[in-house]
């Protein structure tokens, strides 16, 4: 580790002002569970920050509230442990609770935040596929004011997002769930826990009024592309069709085609592609059975 300045602003406005005043070379830090490791281990190629601005305790980033008619406002500094424990998340956005639950150890979950998980932009981020299928939007504040983006547009590549200098991810907005809908997230890891997703799959399904056909479908894949991605063609195969095992199987095969995995120390490309198939099928089945239970 090298020396850097560390700021603890009392408000979001102050945080934004610090970025303006100090200029380039600063980064927000929340739980630090990714960033501190990078500071220690990043080596020479890591763009070492000159200063860090703690956003961990800013009230605007700490919200976890249900707004009737709007949906869920999920502050960027809400921790994995808080998300997992939230009754509203468990009740209405189960995939997100399932993603938050598997991040790191208990100690990590108590520090790691959803904003950090997204801004670190790892293709394997466990909250990204759930948030993608839940229709999340990212609210960003910066020197040029506010912008609201669909989460799909947030990621640019491994470790890269649309955030520009001085911009802070404030919160994530989730629309209220549709009737007869449910979500699910699963990941594959060699170990039972304390691991990084080799493949992560989230699905969201909404059934029609008769409960027979699929009214809306979303599938998101983690760790099989430069960013977490939606499997749009697989989704299209589902909408308007009967919720049968054959249809789910077809979509799973399509999702395999939409993945563009690489080979690395965690798994080969062909293994990952294979897993996308079997896991998408399993996750769709899980989401369907949950939707039917509603």
């Amino acid at each position, binding site marked *: 580790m090298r020396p850097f300045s560390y700021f603890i602003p009392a408000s979001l406005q102050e945080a934004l002002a610090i970025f303006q005043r100090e200029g380039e070379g600063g980064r927000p830090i929340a739980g630090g569970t990714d960033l501190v490791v990078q500071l220690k281990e990043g080596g020479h190629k890591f763009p070492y920050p000159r200063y860090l601005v703690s956003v961990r305790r800013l009230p605007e980033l700490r919200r976890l509230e249900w707004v009737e008619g709007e949906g869920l406002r999920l502050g960027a500094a809400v921790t994995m442990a808080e998300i997992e424990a939230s009754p509203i998340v468990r009740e209405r956005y189960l995939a997100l609770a399932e993603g938050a639950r598997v991040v790191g150890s208990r100690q990590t979950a108590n520090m790691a935040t959803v904003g950090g998980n997204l801004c670190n932009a790892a293709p394997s981020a466990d909250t990204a596929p759930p948030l993608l299928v839940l229709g999340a939007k990212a609210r960003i504040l910066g020197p040029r004011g506010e912008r609201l983006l669909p989460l799909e547009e947030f990621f640019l590549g491994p470790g890269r997002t649309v955030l520009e200098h001085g911009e802070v991810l404030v919160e994530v907005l989730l629309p209220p769930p549709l009737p007869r809908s449910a979500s699910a997230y699963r990941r594959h890891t060699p170990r039972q826990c304390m691991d990084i997703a080799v493949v992560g799959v989230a699905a969201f399904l909404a059934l029609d009024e008769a409960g027979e056909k699929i009214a809306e479908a979303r599938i998101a894949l983690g760790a099989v592309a430069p960013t977490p991605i939606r499997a749009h063609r697989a989704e299209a195969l589902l909408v308007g069709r009967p919720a049968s095992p054959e249809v789910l199987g077809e979509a799973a095969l399509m999702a395999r085609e939409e993945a563009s995995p690489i080979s690395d120390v965690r798994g080969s490309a062909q*293994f990952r592609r294979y897993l996308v198939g079997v896991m998408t099928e399993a996750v769709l089945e899980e989401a369907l059975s949950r939707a039917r239970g509603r």
Partner: protein
Amino acid sequence: MAEVGDVRKAFRHVGKPVPRVDAPAKVTGRTIYGDDLKLPRMLHVKLVHAPVAHARIKGIDASKALAVPGVEAVITAQDLPPHRYDPDNRTRVLLARDEVLFYGQPVAAVLARDPYTSAYARDLVEVQYEELPPVLDPLEALRPDAPLARGSVQALEEGEVGGHITVEGAEARKEEGPRNVASTITFKRGDVEQGFKEAAAVVEGTWRTPMAHQSYIEPHVIVADYDSTGRLSIWSSTQAPFHVRNEVAKTLGLPETRVRVISTEVGGGFGGKIYLYEALVGALAMTLQRPVKLTMSRKEDMLAATPAPNCIVQLKMGMKADGTLSALKARVIFDTGAFPGAPLLPGCLLIGGFYKCPNLEIEGLEVFTNKVSVGALRAPGAHNVAFALESALDMLARRLELDPMEVRLKNAVEKGDPLPSGQPYPAIGLKECLEAVAKSQLWQRRHEIRAHPNRGVGLAVGGWLGGLQPASATVTLNADGTVNALVGAADITGTNTAFAQIVAEVLNLPLEMVRVTTGDTDSAPYAGMSAGSKVTFTVGRAVKLAAEDAKEQILRIASQRLEAPPEELELVDGVVRVRGREDKQLTFRELGRWSTAFGGRYPPIVGRGAVAPRLQAPSFSAQAVEVEVDPNTGQVQVLSWVVAQDVGFAINPMAVEGQMQGGSTQGLGLALFEEMAYDEQGRLLNPNLLDYRLPTTADVPPIETIIVEVPSEDGPYGARIVGEPSIVPGPAAVANAVADAIGARVFQAPLTPEKILHALGKIKD
């Protein structure tokens, strides 16, 4: 076992479960480890680790690093004080001189006032490398046209291997024969070809186990201080303080007695903390005339310590229709990395050492590659060969429709059976371990388990012969009537607790009245290294003798004072009394005072014990494992695990069970997760505990332990070695369970989901 159980009743302390005496300090964070040490004016060193596997060093420019405020020095091989350099000995190549032989090899040392500055400046040292082709795969390395992994290999071949070849054949062998060979071993018995002819079934295969890291919690820590009188003190979390003293002295050209080694609390070693950078840190302290501390990070430790080798076993085995082994032919190849040190001998002895086999032929090769050189990992070499042997045995049993338990019981070695070297076994308990597992609930339920889809049960055995080394101890009586034992062995497994039990047993004291201290190499009575599972077995005997000697001295004085012959005296809780005469007694406290105070009339009580054991007490373990395999994802979940081990006599059953569970857990890790992965350039891809996976509590099932006690002929109270055997069967037991569950066999550890899907034909290359 019943007999031993009765013996146990006769004892007050030994044979009883006792929590480790050092546990409270450890779990409350109060134990002082090497990294807690701070000396005045101490510098912190970080090593520059080569980012290439094989290269010539063309130049080192340290100017940018030296410009960083707080940096005191950058030392390269040229700047070191004169020492005994030996290109063929890893520990005598303190820093790479001209050639880098493995990825992560230290090429320079950066010393600064704090570790952050030295780590930062370390990255600014510019080393120019001329890259050379790296030799990475041991089979490729053996090809006659392979490049050489290291320049000095030729000299080694002539010196060590060439010595076994007749003069006429030597030239031809050198040109056509395998390259990059560090050493070879051959064992032969009977006629293998005849044995295969007699076999009703023959199986053949190639089994691979990858490089694995010991993954102790505490990375290597060394502090060195060279004082104004020319004495070098070294604090090290080593398992082998006396060995470190001798090696440092030899390497740095100092008399042994000018080097003092203090073994700090070992935060896990498993064979990986014997001796590595102590001479380097000592040399730096001598050069700079200041104390120097090296605390390795996890990454540095994974790059540049001494992990366990990658091993390839080509094995062919034949079995008669009745289940008797008829022939075993094995080629065992250990990838030793860039320096010699692979466990070739134990690997080759043990592959032919678990079962009786009239005909065998074992060829062992230790091969150089451009990887970090290897060291010991709990029963070094044993799990690698057991993976092949125990898998092949199951395949033969299946082929002949025989029960895997029966086949093992039929062939298991017993007292008097020869090792491949011809040396006969002393009393051993392999059969008893198998019988214990056969009676376990898990084994009894196996048919029920197999009725579940994708569940299976696997069985495997493993053993370790154990080390021998002279050992000594003293037991002294303090002025307050308590007793101290002083030993020179680092306590890595709870041995000091066992010693306290032994002393308390001999002197019939409450355990709290005994304190055991590990001294440094200046103060402690000599003990060999804490390795080879032998500390309780060897040092324990010395402690027992020392306690008995102290008892005799106590009785001699008490006999005078109480005017009764020693035979009529008894020791009870720190009181010496005449049997049946409560009024005629004296206390240890009185004795302590009389033998220490001003004007005291008796010499201090100092018992001594010293032994040079010559007879090994090998220990075997049999293990059964239940797994469930997800046929869609290839994921293996271990559901239950039974381990039986023959420990001779469990002096502390609680510690023994902990060893058996710990070893089984490591076996599970080697079976399912652990692997140091290298890319085509020889760079380690996973120098961290995220991608080098150890099992978590969620991956490890409850482990049932069954202590088997076939007394050793020579150990204290019949105890034999304990620490190492329980790691050995794991990979084979899991592979056998997976084969039982899904009908497909994996020949390469760890058994990752990907390999299982390959074996099932669900994914293809």
